[in-house]
């Protein structure tokens, strides 16, 4: 509403300031798209570019940065750091995609149901999320790996379970705001099925919220997967995976720091790019609404 958003008019500077933010936004938008695009290319075609990236070279010792033929040196198994980092993109990026999407699907289902049905359904779902939110991730991860073995996909399942209560809460809150609006009541008066109201009428209106959350979750999941790798849960030693490389490189930190630093930078870059993409999309949406 205009009355609540009224701010002090800063005068002629206003349109310039608006143009400025638009330009800055489009720069971050393009930059984040470029980073994500490169990461995707590496994830899809990494195997083709460096077919022998993961081949262990027992004859080679750790080479430092700038060695001939190995721009960033080699790791503890004598593998080229550039090649292994490109090859590691697929394993690093795929897990978090599954986590973020899986958690969104579950969170959307539970959140919509809780907000739309209310009463005991809402109560049950809300208490379930409270329970899950109180679980300590690291401890649970160690227990799960103890029972099921330290596999990559078990780590993914675990993170979906731990992430989905956040999505449930956000979707529930966003839906509760919508559910009392007359357009939803009009849909009830037309006796549309609850599923149709939830998925045709409500979901479309909370989608911007979900999209932002999806991208945020993606960055979080990537970091969480790396953290689990660090604890030895999820990805086995020597696997081409940025999180794992970070840990493995620790042993040779002083011989070749790039073995750890390169994947660390890659994780930070992609996580930032995904977050910034989310921000730009939201800002564009808000602007479209204003017009």
């Amino acid at each position, binding site marked *: *509403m*205009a*009355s*609540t*958003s*009224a*701010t*002090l*008019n*800063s*005068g*002629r500077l*206003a*349109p310039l300031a*608006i143009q400025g933010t638009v330009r800055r936004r489009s720069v971050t938008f393009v930059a984040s798209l470029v980073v994500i695009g490169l990461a995707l290319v590496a994830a899809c075609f990494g195997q083709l570019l460096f077919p022998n990236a993961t081949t262990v070279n027992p004859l080679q010792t750790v080479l430092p940065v700038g060695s001939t033929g190995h721009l960033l040196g080699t790791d503890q198994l004598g593998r080229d750091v550039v090649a292994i980092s490109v090859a590691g993109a697929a394993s690093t990026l795929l897990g978090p995609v599954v986590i973020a999407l899986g958690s969104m699907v579950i969170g959307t289902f539970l959140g919509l149901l809780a907000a739309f049905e209310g009463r005991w359904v809402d109560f049950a779902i809300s208490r379930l999320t409270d329970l899950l939110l109180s679980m300590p991730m690291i401890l649970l991860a160690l227990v799960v790996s103890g029972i099921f073995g330290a596999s990559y996909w078990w780590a993914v399942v675990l993170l979906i379970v731990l992430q989905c209560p956040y999505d449930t809460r956000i979707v529930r809150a966003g839906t509760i705001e919508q559910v009392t*609006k*007359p*357009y939803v*009541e*009009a*849909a*009830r*008066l*037309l*006796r*549309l099925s609850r599923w149709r109201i939830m998925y*045709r*009428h409500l979901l*479309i*209106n909370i989608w911007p919220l979900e999209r932002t959350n999806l991208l945020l979750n993606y960055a979080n999941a990537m970091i969480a997967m790396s953290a689990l790798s660090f604890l030895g849960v999820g990805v086995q030693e020597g696997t081409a995976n940025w999180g794992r490389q970070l840990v493995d490189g620790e042993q040779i930190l002083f011989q070749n720091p790039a073995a750890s630093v390169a994947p660390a930078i890659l994780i930070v870059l992609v996580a930032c790019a995904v977050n910034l993409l989310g921000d730009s999309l939201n800002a564009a949406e808000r602007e479209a*609404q*204003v*017009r």
Partner: protein
Amino acid sequence: MSLAVPTKSVAARAVDLSISSAAGPIVSGVSFEVPLGATLGIVGESGSGKSLTARALSGLLPSGVVASGRVGIGERAIELPGTPTAWRELRGHGVTLILQDPFTSLSPSHRCGAQIAWGLRERTAAGGRGRRLARRDVREAVARLLEDVNLSERVASRYPGELSGGMRQRVAVAAALAAGPVLMVADEPTTALDASNQRDVLELLARLQREHGMGMVLISHDLGMVRDVADEVLVMYAGRAVEHGPTSAVLDKPAHPYTAALRDSELPLAERLERLIAIPGRVPAPGERLAGCAFAPRCRFALDSCSQADVPLAPLPDGRLVACLVSSGPLEAARPRVVEETTAPATDVVLRVENLVKSFPGVLALAGVSLEVPAGGSVGIVGESGSGKTTLARCVAGLDVPDSGRLVFRELELTSRTRTVSQVQMVFQDPYSALNPKIRVGPALAEAARAAGRRIEQRSPEELLELVGLPTDYARKYPRELSGGERQRVAIARSLAPGPELLVCDESVSALDVSVQAQVLNLLTDLRSQLGLCLLFISHDLAVVRQVSDSIHVIKAGRIVESGRTHEVLGTPGHEYTRQLISALLPTVGVSVP
């Protein structure tokens, strides 16, 4: 406390004020002057730029718009847009803003007394005395201000959430007065209030303006309200001033076709018109304005030359300013035909409401309400907010389940099992939230038509749009592309899609401009005769109910206190409460008498 200044000196002045956004100009070249001790009313429909004009006077324009021109408050003036520092100084010398919604214009987490005291401190700071007010002085000053707005001293320690809408608006007025303004800008100050509160707050504003010798700018879409308190009126249309002069001349004998059309579309309380006078079309959006007189496309007097060049304000012999090529003096009021109201013959009953009771935690919303809606009839329900009229509408529509009592629809008791979509549908108040913002008009209407299943022959979205008088290509539009009136037509089309026999209209025209209100009411009347539709029309506005209802029920605190034929109940009210509601609508006599 009156300021000792000559009445001729100026409270506010705007010279060539223009405001534009990225989409286009919103206000173009508006100039006016408000003497101390006088009230200027600015009237116009939504989209006329009247609210932004008011905000420009206080330097509170939203971000994304740019202003140019000159604004003066008291003896100081500022070249727009002005720096924040310059504005702070100008504001400190006496302009305050009273907003429409008393529910959001006060901070919910500060006590009312503290909020009034902020203005007092501001005044001391601007006065340059450089000394903080003693706590006791503040308390006394706050008490005086509260007394000034007819509130008890105890209100100071209350939070806004504990007060009614009318009381909150008084607190907002007290806070505005605290700064010792020379100009008070009131933007639709009573629109969000009940009729009886509206009158009180309006009288209060007029009295304070007079006692404190301030200038007041009153922004309103309600001509009656402006007529009661303003000395001069500025009529705005699509960002331009179209008529400006003394209130009695402009509003009673308008010379601009737009002002005349606004006057003609006011709904009479005393009689029922066969056809309400509406202004066709809609106010152009900032990007859509063409050259020439912006009103020309909707004007019944328009000539070819009207849309060729901009039409400036020019003085008429009687001194007022009018921007029109055609008009050279007061325009005749249109005389629509009045309907003879007689007692209708008894017909069969479509809906019978029997002893309906509904309570919410702590409130008894309906305390045993019974009424009947005859076939093809239109029944009005009037009452103030909190009277239970909306709960009644929701129970009839099936959105709320009554605690006890029966709803009988054509001999069939309505339960969640026996309800079908072809019995009762509802049109909501706010056309902005009644349509799903992400779904285009066509699919929304198609979905509603499918909802009835095979019970009725399905109407296509195009047929439904034609039924409510909209072009068929609107099927491809999103709700945000439509004006308020157009959205309400779409909402009506959607509710008609499953072929209901009874339409519940809950304040369905309250959020619309007067000219659009008349369009929608005419549409409802047409639909009644065309489709044999029954209406249950809920409203706080007696004049609206007068125009659409054959019979009327007055509801107070969940009980019906008076029922009868509309012309009889409103002509010779039997219950004290009905008389109160009617008298709140009559001109506020005595306001301008010291």
